[in-house]
């Protein structure tokens, strides 16, 4: 985690790695536990379209690699380090998912391989994000190092990326449930529009709150519209895209028309927007 680790002797470095690995397990458990205990997640594991599962797994690798820059097992400055981090997180999350699902009897001996692999692969997605985040988040003493600086003051694309991760962080907890689509059916068009506006307002409140106090950020006030357009609106667009992608992956758009797609995306975008806006606070 610290830059000095490189010059240290092997045992110290390995010790650090095992501490990091323990954190990864803890993080994947914290992040994935709500999903491990959600029955829709088990069901989606076997009915999910194979190609969507493949895409989800492929998306995970670059996602984790970039994320490792912000909160990695150690300060990662190279692409190879990032990729290594990503696969370590995946390994930790997969092992954790297998152990927990096996104890829950969600996976058993004698089940078809497709079912077991589907269930585990699906849980590995949130789990590995949690594993990656935990290495930064739970690593108390190392905070304040260079990691912190990158995480605290990322570039604009980095900022948007973290917002996206925040949206996934919160959105994944509810994305697999049937309530999302059910809510979008229950709500009329005006309620959906009101929810979108509420999401934007709350999101901007968070963005504003996070951008100002206690942070030596910009010397001058960036102004309402600048902040609103650059972070809130762009961030919300990213949130909606991520929501739509997650719902599509979970097969919630089968036979849906554009109105249903938008409605469900806006409903899932509500928690997603909060997650995105609060990303700097929670990640």
């Amino acid at each position, binding site marked *: 985690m610290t830059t000095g680790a490189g010059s240290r002797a092997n045992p110290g470095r390995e010790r650090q790695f095992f501490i990091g690995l323990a954190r990864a397990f803890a993080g994947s458990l914290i992040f994935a536990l709500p999903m491990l205990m959600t029955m829709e997640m088990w069901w989606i594991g076997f009915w999910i379209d194979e190609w969507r599962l493949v895409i989800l797994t492929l998306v995970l690798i670059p996602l984790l690699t970039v994320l490792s820059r912000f909160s990695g097992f150690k300060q990662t400055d190279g692409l*190879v380090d990032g990729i*290594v981090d990503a696969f370590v997180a995946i390994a930790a999350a997969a092992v954790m998912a297998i152990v927990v699902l096996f104890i829950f009897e969600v996976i058993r001996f004698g089940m*078809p391989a*497709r079912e077991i692999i589907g269930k585990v692969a699906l849980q590995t997605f949130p789990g590995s994000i949690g594993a990656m985040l935990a290495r930064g988040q739970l690593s108390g003493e190392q905070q304040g190092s260079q990691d912190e600086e990158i995480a605290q003051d990322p570039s604009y694309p980095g900022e948007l990326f973290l917002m996206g991760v925040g949206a996934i962080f919160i959105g994944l907890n509810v994305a697999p449930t049937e309530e999302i689509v059910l809510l979008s059916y229950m709500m009329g068009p005006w309620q959906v529009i009101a929810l979108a506006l509420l999401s934007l307002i709350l999101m901007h409140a968070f963005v504003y709150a996070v951008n100002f106090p206690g942070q030596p950020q910009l010397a001058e006030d960036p102004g309402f519209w600048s902040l609103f357009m650059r972070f809130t609106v762009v961030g919300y667009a990213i949130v909606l895209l991520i929501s739509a992608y997650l719902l599509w992956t979970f097969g919630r758009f089968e036979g849906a028309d554009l109105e249903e797609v938008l409605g469900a995306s806006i409903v899932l975008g509500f928690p997603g927007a909060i997650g995105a806006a609060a990303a700097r606070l929670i990640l």
Partner: protein
Amino acid sequence: MNAPTKSPPRKSESSRQIHPGSTTSKWEWVAAACGLLLVLGTLGYIVYYALTTEAKIPDITAEAIRTEPTRGGHVVQFRARNHSSTTAAGLQITGELRQGSSVVERSEITLDYLPPFSEREGGLIFQEDPARYELRIAPKAYREP
């Protein structure tokens, strides 16, 4: 991202030797290799599955395993098996006790899901003794998940 700045760790993977300047420990490479194997294995299997398995309509059989008299009636344990790669949701299974062409008693159950190529067990409860009649258990209806 700044790609090729870290070429030494890449070499250390193949030789399993750690360069003095590398911040990646040997065990980290081992763990990462495990992760890579899991991902490749998953992708390989799922792609293989997707290419070799035709999506069809559910092909379901249901059979009685055993009958046990209980205080609440005669429990007929059954096993439903899906022989296809398509999930049946809300799968309805009915059991009938027949005498000739007339149905003496009927019992129904709905299974939430019967995943591809898997089996689920359940019980149908009859007040009459199934041993005295002809027992028929059959899948009746399902919906797509």
